[in-house]
């Protein structure tokens, strides 16, 4: 079919997002769909502008990876008026669910919870001081992953978050903040690190090594996203677990859109992607090689 889809992407702030974009492009090519891509550079207003432009252009469907949950009602209504189905990728919005066709996302709270539960099980009954590297202050995955993790460890009184500071989802901030954690708490007093994404964890791992400790042994490391470098770190024994956030959000979305346009099949309102836990028991080297192709 000669479909044109507009995709309003948040930006390219991380490798994961680059991968999401490149998967979306690959999948579109595979299906013969014309993809109009718009990078919003982290700004909601740019996303809204892009969506309005897509409407003005008369595309067949609109994908949005919303930068924030709120503030979409008006523009979604306009899309609805123009009979253009909207599909949400990787994050949800606070809007009435008849304004969009479906959302393809993971459950970010659940991701955090998986991490918490894994850690609780890994340490058993031992006392454990956790340091937390938060994502960008105020961003929804940071908030959800923090909440989820707290739920995950809620049952175990022996787990305690002693320090929590933002590392902005970046490697270098992850490293810097971890350094200060190591000084402020004393490396030997920290039993585990929970990072809201793998990039920060990878940075923090270097800080731990430079402090003369063994990441993965002296300090357990668990993070979220399962980017290739995290698999590598797990394979090297420097990281213990990561929870996957698949970059293939567009694939299921294309499927749903094509079906809907073909015969009006309504997809479920939430297509949840799997939040798979990877640990040392997986073949991380192989996964690394495989994921490397995806444009992370």
């Amino acid at each position, binding site marked *: 079919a000669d479909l044109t889809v507009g995709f309003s992407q948040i930006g390219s702030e991380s490798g994961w997002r680059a991968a999401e974009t490149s998967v979306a492009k690959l999948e579109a090519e595979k299906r013969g769909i014309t993809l109009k891509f718009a*990078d919003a550079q982290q700004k909601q207003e740019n996303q809204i502008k892009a969506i309005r432009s897509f409407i003005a252009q008369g595309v067949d469907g609109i994908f949005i990876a919303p930068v924030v949950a709120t503030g979409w009602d008006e523009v979604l209504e306009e899309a609805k008026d123009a009979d253009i189905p909207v599909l949400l990728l990787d994050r949800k919005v606070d809007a009435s669910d008849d304004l969009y066709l479906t959302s393809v996302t993971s459950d970010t709270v659940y991701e955090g919870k998986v991490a918490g539960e894994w850690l609780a099980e890994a340490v058993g009954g031992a006392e454990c001081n956790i340091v937390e590297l938060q994502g960008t202050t105020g961003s929804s995955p940071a908030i959800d992953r923090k909440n989820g993790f707290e739920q995950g460890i809620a049952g175990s009184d022996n787990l305690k978050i002693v320090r929590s500071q933002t590392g902005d989802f970046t490697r270098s901030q992850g490293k810097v903040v971890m350094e200060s954690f190591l000084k402020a708490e004393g490396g030997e007093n920290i039993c585990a690190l929970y990072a809201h994404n793998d990039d920060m964890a990878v940075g923090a791992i270097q800080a731990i090594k430079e402090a003369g400790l063994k990441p993965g042994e002296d300090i357990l490391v668990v993070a979220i996203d399962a980017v290739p470098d995290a698999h590598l770190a797990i394979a090297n024994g420097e990281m213990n677990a990561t929870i996957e956030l698949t970059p293939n959000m567009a694939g299921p979305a294309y499927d749903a859109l094509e079906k809907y346009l073909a015969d009006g099949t309504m997809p479920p309102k939430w297509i949840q992607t799997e939040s798979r836990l990877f640990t040392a028991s997986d073949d991380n080297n192989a996964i690394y090689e495989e994921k490397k192709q995806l444009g992370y």
Partner: protein
Amino acid sequence: MIRTTHLPLLVTLGTFVIAFALCAWQYPAIFSTRVAANLLTDNAFLGIAAVGMTFVILSGGIDLSIGSVIAFTGVFLAVILRDTNIHPLAAFALVLVITTAFGAAMGAVIHYLEMPAFIVTLAGMFLARGAAYVLSTDSVPITHEFFSTLQDIYWKAPSGGRFRLIGGVMLLTFIIGAIVAHRTKFGQNVFAMGGGAATARLMGVPLASTTIRIYAISGGLAGLSGIVFSLYTSAGYSLATVGVELDAIAAVVIGGTLLTGGYGFVAGTFFGILIMGLIQTYIVFDGSLSSWWTKIVIGGLLFAFILLQKGLTWATRTGKRQSTGLATPS
């Protein structure tokens, strides 16, 4: 009579018309009320903030805090409407008072402590965003029905474009801004400061009150822009509008205002905003640029506009000669 002083304005206007024609030629859909309406609606908050920025830049200053103030305003409104029962209009008034006072305070620091505006407003930028974080890190939806009432005010053009209230607010701001800048004593004082603060002082321009008022206007308009932004998104979010100050500065500069102050037009800023909006629209219509090419192209176009302006200014300046004007005494 067309004076050479109006040239930058005409250049900007001409640039916009040519650019629009070129875009519409490539993508005919751009020539529609929908796109026109979008340009107004989507850039409303930026336009309003840019009016304030125009005043600041005309006076030879700079205000880096506006993006943060917009975010703060949104969060403040959202939180206060969530947690209290006060009417949005009262909340609007309250937030405008706060942001205006904030701007005035920055102006006072700049003037009385003789600190560079760049640095004072940089600290203001940290402070306002920090305050927004402290209020709420979450994005807070605004559900008050008065907001929906305001959002539902629009005029739908036959071909589908919706001209919304906030676009109107922006136009009104531009008109008032232009009158204040070009038709009042205060406006003249702003230009005078931009021409040289020390000289303006010797000529009797009250620097203190002018500086304070300029930054109060910028703060207040950033507040208004924040209100418009909250109407635009029905939410307050502390991470919103990062870097808007740079967009505003770019719009002001493209609009023909000299960053060193003293020369420029509020109306020019309006076309600056439209040009920037057009660039974005064009990039989305094209839809084939990757994230990085988007940035490079935006930078390149910015450069092209600056160069175009430089070239035109240069072309008109040579050729013009000075006249002594001294009449021969008899």
